[in-house]
């Protein structure tokens, strides 16, 4: 008699049951409540204080955006969990079959290894989404306090964290399949994470190509999403790396294939992925979904900048760690690149911190060149840079139509949040764990 359920559904059910049996996943679920709760409660308190509660100056909330004030810190808890907890869940699910010997049985089904790994990936993603329920609780609580939610920016942060979780799952799946033991896989996965942190550090010190490379690390990618910015090149890189991780996991799950062949296939598929990522870096398309246009100049400034004819070159004589350069990069260059992808920015400095270059002639100068016409300024604020560019190009922006973001200050206490995150959620997770384990 044939089973009514197809083999893939059986496998899906099996992976789901294995996830439910994974203590690592229950720990992730349990911890997510207090982790998200602490971040959310702290964020709401800070937001309220700065909005005027408790005697601080009212009016500073003018520039307040829930994206930066609430969602970025709240979702940071997800980033922590994705780095330190999710890899263990993924490794448990992927390496468990090999450890128990179940893989030797399951591989005797003709189902392709890619389908098996994709099933595991789907279940892990579902497990991550369930673990993210405390974030949804935070959103509901924020609404109940009277907080404003701007859906596009909130969705962007959420999508960013799902992509980041996918990347973590991909890397962990690959290491769990390639290495013989889950402990080795955990070490390799954490090493990869620490490696990206080192890359970010080197980028901050050295700048240049390192900075470009660091813009594709999970930390930078998540940071962009948390600021409401969707960069197509970063998304392509993250999705490709996730697919690469899962593909490598599928290649190394096949037990009966010679190591040399698996190695050759791994090299080929990695080369293909690198090719896709490299091609993806050519795209400059990005979307600023933040309500406050956090990553963009005003519409009139953008129109004016687009209308400047000819090539635009900026030569910055500031060291990578000089706070002025950091300000210039974040507040001006990043926004300028979104409007004028053709802008050529050159950095000149002899040291990484610039401390001993301050007295050098020319240090701190920023040269602007539009089709041979040059101007120099030392200012790093957006207003000054734009003024310099407009006067050099001979254009003037239209008057702003008044759609300036005024912010959403909110003087609210995080009522009921402690109960939800520190009591209800852990109790719910514990009860579910006991009930499910008890059924077995």
């Amino acid at each position, binding site marked *: 008699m044939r089973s009514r359920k197809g083999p893939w559904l059986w496998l899906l059910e099996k992976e789901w049951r294995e996830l439910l049996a994974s203590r690592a996943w229950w720990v992730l679920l349990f911890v997510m409540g207090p982790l998200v709760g602490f971040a959310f409660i702290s964020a709401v308190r800070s937001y309220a204080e700065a909005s005027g509660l408790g005697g601080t100056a009212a009016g500073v909330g003018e520039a307040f955006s829930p994206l930066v004030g609430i969602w970025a810190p709240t979702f940071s808890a997800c980033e922590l969990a994705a780095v330190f907890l999710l890899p263990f869940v993924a490794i448990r699910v992927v390496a468990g079959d090999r450890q128990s010997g179940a893989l030797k049985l399951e591989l*005797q089904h003709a189902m392709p290894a890619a389908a098996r790994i994709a099933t595991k990936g789907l279940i892990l993603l579902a497990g991550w989404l369930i673990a993210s329920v405390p974030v949804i609780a935070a959103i509901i609580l924020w609404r109940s306090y009277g907080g404003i939610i701007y859906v596009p920016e909130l969705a962007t942060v959420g999508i960013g964290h799902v992509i980041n979780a996918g990347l973590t799952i991909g890397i962990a799946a690959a290491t769990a399949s390639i290495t013989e033991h889950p402990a080795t896989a955990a070490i390799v996965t954490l090493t990869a994470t620490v490696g990206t942190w080192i890359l970010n550090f080197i980028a901050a010190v050295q700048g240049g190509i390192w900075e470009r490379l660091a813009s594709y690390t999970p930390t930078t990618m998540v940071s962009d999403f948390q600021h409401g910015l969707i960069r197509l090149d970063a998304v392509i890189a993250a999705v490709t790396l996730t697919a690469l991780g899962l593909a490598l996991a599928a290649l190394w799950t096949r037990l009966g294939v010679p190591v040399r062949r698996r190695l050759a296939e791994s090299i080929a598929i990695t080369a293909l992925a690198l090719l896709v990522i490299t091609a993806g870096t050519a795209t400059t398309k990005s979307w600023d979904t933040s309500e406050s246009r956090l990553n963009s100049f005003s519409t009139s400034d953008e129109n004016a900048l687009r209308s400047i004819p000819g090539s635009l070159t900026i030569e910055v004589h500031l060291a990578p760690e000089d706070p002025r350069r950091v300000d210039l990069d974040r507040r001006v260059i990043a926004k300028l690149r979104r409007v004028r992808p053709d802008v050529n920015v050159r950095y000149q400095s002899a040291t990484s911190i610039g401390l001993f270059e301050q007295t050098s002639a020319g240090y701190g100068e920023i040269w602007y060149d539009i089709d041979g016409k040059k101007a120099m300024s030392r200012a790093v604020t957006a207003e000054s840079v734009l003024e310099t560019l407009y006067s050099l190009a001979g254009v003037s922006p239209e008057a702003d139509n008044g759609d300036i973001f005024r912010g959403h200050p909110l003087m609210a206490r995080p009522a009921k949040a402690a109960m939800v995150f520190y009591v209800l959620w852990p109790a719910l997770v514990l009860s579910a764990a006991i009930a499910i384990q008890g059924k077995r």
Partner: protein
Amino acid sequence: MADVAFSIRPGEILGLIGPNGAGKTTLFECLAGVLPPTSGIICLDGQPLTVRSRTRTLFYLPDAIAPWPAQTVRWALDFTIGFFDGRRDLLGRVVDGLELGPLLDSPIGTLSKGQRKRVLLAIGLLTSQPMLMADEPFDGLDLRQTREVAAILQTHARSGRTLFLSIHQIADAARLCDRFVLLSAGKVCGAGTLDGLAGLARSKGSSASNLEEVFLAFT
């Protein structure tokens, strides 16, 4: 392993006999596609077996594994039938024959070695491939269980399924198998029925009459 060549006939119980380290498990895993052979070919009715046709033809039951340790025996048997398109019609008989009834709701990870072995045998018996390869099917079983399992395997073979068993205990092999493949140091040093092998041993000057003596004569 080198120069390993033998044949299996439909419906027979073929025993793979060899000392520790002879390569029995390696041979099984190469045949099942779990280990990659450096060279060699498996033929079915004279035609080379592809990976896909191999999964349809044979099922390999490894020794010393504890698959899906968090899942119950009941679920593991259901999964075997569902995922591998196994024989649900045999479920009751297999569960009764291997005395798995009291264990059905126990997680596999909590079972003793012998209980786990019986669950693994049930998994193998419930699959539908025409040939079942089992590595050390009696390992961990006591004398009574060994005899009961041997009887179940014989009944299973009589229903038309081919069994290829790697057996450490020569007495068990002698009681159960129709023919034998003797493996030593990665090489086949004899293959055939007990009478055939004994005759071959006598022609070489040995006075072997039972499987133990034949085994010693060839290895």
